[in-house]
């Protein structure tokens, strides 16, 4: 029995340039008590379809044709055509929030900052169940308990900004669930979350679905989520359905070339070391050696494997200040005795959840802030120097060697500058060449990242996310650096574009002899691009080693949890929801011995196998007995 039947749905946006069909003749059905996943890239129209079902399409769009038949179980299975109902009218409002509810993508902005969680969750109950304030509060607490919210009694009085992303998402789920809807639409419910939290939220959605007998329509671009959650899949591309069927059929025997291409573009942990992703729209970097500056390639290859940058016992504390900015309120340790080595010509991946200190560690290598303690030495032709000791002038020169690619390609480009100006700026600041040679260098950079020189006079808003990130890469390469920090460069991009950027970075590394530090929360991405991986948690490095060894033979309990939580885009490795460890896994005081760390415990790394180090302070005392050669790297 189908709960929802979408038949021949077309949605049109009317903007300044006329009408634009974003959804074309889409048909699919959602059977009762099943989970259907709507899969596609951004801009494919999958979110628009879900909003049409909810009756919350943006003001500038309308349904031009088609039916959205919803079986109203509370009215003896009477079929309602949502497409015909006025979206703000009482009939649609009665269904929305009561029978059909939605979980949104970004928990950070989906809640009103000025109202308590309790107020916002109980609202739907008051609207549809006509309950009093007291009863609504009880219902809210029940729902918060259902989504395993800690301390529901207190939580109803909390404001969203007092909660973490994971907790906010739980609150949103509770909010959608409070009227026990028959259909739950989840729009990328875990995209903004860390892997471990993602796994928990997915588990939670599954639990609640079973408990409340719900039907789920899941919108996602993540095939890992699809294989773990969905019974049926609908693949959408450019507003049209490309392929639909059961998960098994689609993954084992994909028919449509688009789906095949999409599947090939997703990095997964079970890839072969030399396997390359196949982007849907591949680009080829075009290098031509100019005499703008002698290329460091040869040199870099000669010194391959020697230490380039070394962190020794690096600590960084941040102090919170209260409103007046005077008294100390608290301190957080962003980096706790971090010791790492980046070798010339390699890509070191740093993974961890948000707040693990991975970005702080990377930024410290650029001397973005003074350290609390420790030493970071950078090796040049003249030997190793502590970058903390650099004078202003030396630091300025250091900027030519080490550059960064930022996470968000949308906010990291000045919207008022043309592509040409953006790429020229580093050259102007460092007074490299005259305007003629700068122009040549800019064209070279454009070629390098596979953009066209025709774009040079355009402003950033006319580029897509992937193109912008390529501009970011070109800008970072402008000064011909030898060391690049990539701070989650693909986290804001679609899977298909992600593959393109990852391949580009890989190619550039080989062509230009670069050294990368690649920061990411996505293990599959790090696995694909890195030679070695460092896992961080709560400001500590818990495990470092060659990529294969970390992925195939994780030692540290935290690394294991992290790996277990990654949803794999294949049907053979489904997530084991029952074995999820919960939040305890990211609490160093609750790790089993010898990994346990108290607040004052100094991280201590032990070499388990060649080049594979694990943080196990408990082994320090056993060193002499077991004979492990333990020391900092």
């Amino acid at each position, binding site marked *: 029995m189908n709960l929802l039947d979408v038949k021949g749905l077309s949605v049109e946006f009317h903007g300044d340039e006329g009408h634009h069909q974003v959804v074309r003749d889409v048909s699919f059905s959602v059977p009762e008590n099943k989970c259907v996943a709507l899969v596609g890239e951004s801009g494919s129209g999958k979110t628009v379809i879900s909003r049409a079902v909810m009756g919350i399409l943006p003001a500038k769009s309308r349904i031009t044709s088609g039916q959205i038949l919803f079986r109203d179980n509370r009215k003896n299975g009477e079929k309602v055509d949502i497409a015909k109902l006025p979206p703000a009218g009482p009939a649609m*409002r009665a269904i929305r929030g009561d029978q059909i509810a939605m979980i949104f993508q970004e928990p950070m902005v989906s809640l009103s900052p000025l109202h308590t969680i309790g107020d916002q969750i109980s609202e739907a109950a008051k609207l549809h169940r006509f309950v009093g304030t007291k009863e609504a509060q009880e219902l809210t607490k029940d729902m918060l308990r259902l989504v395993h919210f800690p301390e529901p009694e207190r939580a109803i009085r909390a404001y969203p900004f007092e909660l973490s992303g994971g907790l906010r998402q739980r609150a949103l789920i509770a*909010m959608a669930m409070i009227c026990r809807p028959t259909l739950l639409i989840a729009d990328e419910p875990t995209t903004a979350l860390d892997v471990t939290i993602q796994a928990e939220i997915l588990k939670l959605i599954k639990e609640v679905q079973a408990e409340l007998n719900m039907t789920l329509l899941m919108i996602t671009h993540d095939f890992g989520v699809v294989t773990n959650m969905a019974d049926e899949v609908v693949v959408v591309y450019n507003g049209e359905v490309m392929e639909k069927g059961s998960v098994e059929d689609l993954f084992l025997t994909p028919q449509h070339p688009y789906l095949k291409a999409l599947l090939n573009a997703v990095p997964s942990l079970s890839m072969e070391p030399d396997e390359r992703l196949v982007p849907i729209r591949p680009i080829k970097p075009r290098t031509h050696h100019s005499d703008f500056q002698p290329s460091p390639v040869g040199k870099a290859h000669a010194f391959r494997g020697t230490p380039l940058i070394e962190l020794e016992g690096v600590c960084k504390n941040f102090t919170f200040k209260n409103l007046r900015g005077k008294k100390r309120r608290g301190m957080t340790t962003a980096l706790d005795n971090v010791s790492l080595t980046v070798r010339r010509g390699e890509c070191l991946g740093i993974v961890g959840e948000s707040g693990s200190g991975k970005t702080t560690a990377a930024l410290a290598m650029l001397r973005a802030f003074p350290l609390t303690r420790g030493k970071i030495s950078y090796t040049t032709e003249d030997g190793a120097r502590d970058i903390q000791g650099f004078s202003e002038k030396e630091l300025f020169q250091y900027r030519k060697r080490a550059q960064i690619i930022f996470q968000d390609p949308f906010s990291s480009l000045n919207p008022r500058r043309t592509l040409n100006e953006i790429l020229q700026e580093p050259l102007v600041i460092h007074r490299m060449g005259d305007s003629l040679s700068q122009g040549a260098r800019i064209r070279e950079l454009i070629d390098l990242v596979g953009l066209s020189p025709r774009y040079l006079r355009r402003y950033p808003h006319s580029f897509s996310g992937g193109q912008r990130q390529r501009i970011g890469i070109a800008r970072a390469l402008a000064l011909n650096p030898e060391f690049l920090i990539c701070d989650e460069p693909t986290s804001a991009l679609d899977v298909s574009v992600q593959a393109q950027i990852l391949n580009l970075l890989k190619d550039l590394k080989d062509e230009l002899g670069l050294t990368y530090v690649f920061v990411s929360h996505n293990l599959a991405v790090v696995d694909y691009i890195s030679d070695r991986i460092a896992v961080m948690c709560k400001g500590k490095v818990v495990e470092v080693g060659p990529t294969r060894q970390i992925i195939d033979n994780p030692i540290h309990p935290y690394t294991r949890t992290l790996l277990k939580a990654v949803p794999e885009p294949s049907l053979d490795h489904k997530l084991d929801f029952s074995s999820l460890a919960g939040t305890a896994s990211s609490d160093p005081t609750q790790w089993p011995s010898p990994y346990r760390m108290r607040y004052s415990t100094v991280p201590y790394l032990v070499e388990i196998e060649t080049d594979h180090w694990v943080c196990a302070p408990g082994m320090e005392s056993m060193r002499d007995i077991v004979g492990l050669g333990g020391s900092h790297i």
Partner: protein
Amino acid sequence: MLNYILRRLLVMIPTLAAISFLVFFIIELPEGDYISNQISMLRSTGESASIGRLEFLRKEFALDRPFVERYGIWVGLWPGPNGFDGLIQGNWGWSFEYDQPVGEVVGPTLPLTVALNLATILFIYCVAFPIGIYSATHQYSLGDYTFTLIGYLGLATPNFLLALVLMYLANSWFGLTVGGIMEEHYIGEPLSGGKALSIVAHLIVPVIVIGTSGTAAMIRRLRANLLDEIYKQYVTTARSKGMRESKLLVKYPLRVALNPFIADIGNLIPSLVSGSVIVSVVLNLPTVGPVLLGALQSQDQFLAGFILLFVSILTLIGMLVSDVLLGYLDPRIRLGKEGARQ
């Protein structure tokens, strides 16, 4: 919260001290004082008979002392000819021009000034809010364009011109004598229903005149603020619960869009006092504005100083009120966490 208000009140003391010093310093900047000007004027006309009395006044009000001493005496921190007798002790000074204590000159005008200001602020908020909300929710509609046009006209028309036009219209259409604060025969009579009505009727035109530009500016800003908010995700979240559009608008985006307006209360007050000077002169309103203008022109220093200080106090109180309201309405400010980053 109480703690916070107390702390803010304490901070106001040094602020006031600094303001009073600045006010006194600036008023004293021009050469001479009221009495020395009078003396030289009398000398030039050859009438030196009353010079002796003026010299006595100069001594009496310590105008012959050095600057810092004069300031101290004015505030009441330094013994003057009559001992400690300044603002702190409740002596607001002497107006030479009116030949009266400042309190008696200013006193009758203060209630009207405050009433006029409050009425104007209320007018601004009452008119600007519905229009601003309408303009934001019906962006680029005929109504939006009409209000935008009227708003720009309101911003661009000089107040005094509007005052004259309205004065003429009110007189020729409704037979209201707009000038002054009440019908002439009520002046000096005890307060009665008729007198109160007359005052209210006379307030309407000045309120509209003074409030127009503020209203226009506020409509534009509310529209912009609200437009920023109504497309945010949390509004969609609320909509997905099945709320009525009107209820939703008031509960969510309007609440968030409100902050700048509350923060503005403190700034509105001084601009209303200084903005209403010309209008008050044109409409012959006995507010503080024209008195201040006269005092500044004739270097009636104690009078001018007191009025300026009074306006500053109003501003400080306005700021305090807006801060307390903001803290009350916005948990991010009240709880002072990193939520402000959102």
